[in-house]
């Protein structure tokens, strides 16, 4: 059932591709702004630099603060293994894994926010509160979308769900289009992209994710950045597999197709960031609730 080649490719892709996605986003934004922009490989350099540094830990922090980045990276890696990317089977799969996927991501969030609270800094507590509030609203949208797909495909296993869902575009395209829109909003929210959060800003009052990791430095910060890029890959993979079916011609065609799809998603995120401004913080919940409503509407349509 599990073939070693695809599993090996998946592990390599999950480890190597994510920083490139960030590079593509950066390059797209630079292109729109008329700049040269950092090179595509910039985040690899950043990570390399960070992993060579020393960490500074505040004396008020406990082990939770040190565990936060590690858990964030490991959970992102584990979650990425659940998603079927360029192969019909994902590296890890069993019945009910969509729920595990959502809660592995939830675990990551729990530790990131706990680590932020552990510093005792009011700013980081504020960021943690925002992160959790918005996550509460983003998670139903993800789940309702999964519910629609589970209902369509009659399966509760991510690789079967995402493997056969594209067959239903011709009959239930409306529901799937709604789920796709809902998930795209979740992708932006979960990865702290504009319009939810500006990854470039360093103004604590407006930040959500960045403010939680202010106290992390060196390798710990590197792990957080790396984990965040993996999370971007996870959500891009969900969107890509919802849209593009596998060719079934074997891994040598499917994997490049998937990677191209993920890069296109990154370009689209870059275009999005260049063309619109951040939402006011008070309006963020409205957009997330709209995402939930779109997914819910997709489900209602299916049940009609």
């Amino acid at each position, binding site marked *: 059932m599990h073939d070693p080649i695809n599993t090996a490719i998946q592990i390599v892709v999950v480890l190597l591709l994510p920083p490139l996605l960030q590079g593509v986003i950066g390059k797209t934004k630079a292109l729109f702004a008329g700049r040269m922009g950092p090179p595509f490989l910039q985040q690899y350099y950043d990570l390399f630099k960070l992993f060579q540094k020393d960490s500074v830990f505040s004396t008020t922090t406990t082990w939770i603060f040190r565990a936060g980045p590690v858990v964030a990276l490991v959970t992102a890696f584990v979650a990425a293994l659940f998603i079927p990317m360029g192969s019909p089977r994902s590296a890890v799969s069993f019945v009910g894994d969509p729920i595990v996927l959502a809660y592995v991501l939830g675990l990551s969030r729990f530790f990131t926010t706990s680590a932020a609270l552990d510093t005792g800094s009011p700013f980081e507590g504020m960021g943690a509160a925002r992160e959790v509030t918005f996550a509460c609203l983003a998670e139903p949208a993800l789940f309702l979308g999964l519910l629609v797909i589970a209902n369509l495909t009659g399966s509760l296993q991510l690789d079967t769900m995402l493997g056969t869902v594209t067959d239903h575009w*011709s*009959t239930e*395209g*409306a529901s799937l*289009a*709604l789920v796709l*829109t809902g998930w795209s909003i979740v992708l932006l929210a979960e990865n702290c992209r504009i319009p939810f959060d500006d990854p470039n800003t360093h103004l604590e009052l407006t930040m959500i994710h960045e403010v939680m990791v202010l106290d992390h430095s060196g390798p710990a910060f590197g792990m957080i950045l790396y984990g965040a890029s993996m999370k971007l890959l996870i959500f891009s993979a969900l969107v890509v597999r919802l849209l593009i079916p596998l060719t079934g011609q074997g891994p040598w065609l499917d994997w490049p197709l998937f990677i191209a799809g993920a890069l296109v998603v990154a370009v689209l995120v870059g275009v999005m960031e260049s063309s619109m401004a951040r939402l006011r913080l008070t*309006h963020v*919940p*409205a*957009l997330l*609730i*709209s995402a939930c*409503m*779109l997914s*819910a*509407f997709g489900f*209602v*349509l299916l049940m*009609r």
Partner: protein
Amino acid sequence: MFELFDVALILAVALNFVFLGVSRTRAVINAVALQGALIGTFILFVQPDVGLRGILLALVTIALKGRIIPTFLLHAMREADIQHEVEPVVGFIPSLLLGGVGTALAIAFSNTLPLTSEHAHLLLVPASFSTVWTGFLLLTTRRQAIMQVLGYLVLENGIYLFGLLLLEAMPFLVEMGVLLDVFTGVFVMGIIVHHINVEFDSISTAYLRNLKE
């Protein structure tokens, strides 16, 4: 063909949520224009063999709903110095939720209606109810007169969607009657907005209660 129509209808319903959730008046006007133009094309979906008359009707609808009325409204915004932020009586999130509940109920309700078999599987009827409901919400929960004009337009979009069911029976009569209604409606509203503005230096309808002796 019908699948594409369903997607277009979904888009129209999704725009309903935009009306309820967006806080910039100008964005709402643009979204109403988009929905109007989208709805204008629906004649071509409902009756694939429309002929010249149908195409003309679609063009008039698109021009009127998608271009002329929104242009008037944007003009009015500039002239009357209408503020750019929507002032909801019921907040954005509750109105979004109300809109969602209304849409779900619209779908549930239209399943119980005795529709002809050719219309029963279409999303046209639920989309129409949902749009009418959104129009009502905008009319009742927004403070500015211009938002109420927009609510009225959305309400009319919903009625128009329902009217598409009757297209084969009486094409011109229904459509033209409805379009004229809207046109006069917008004019009357424009005059009212203007007068509220002149009288109170604001277009908040909350001031209207000052009119009573």
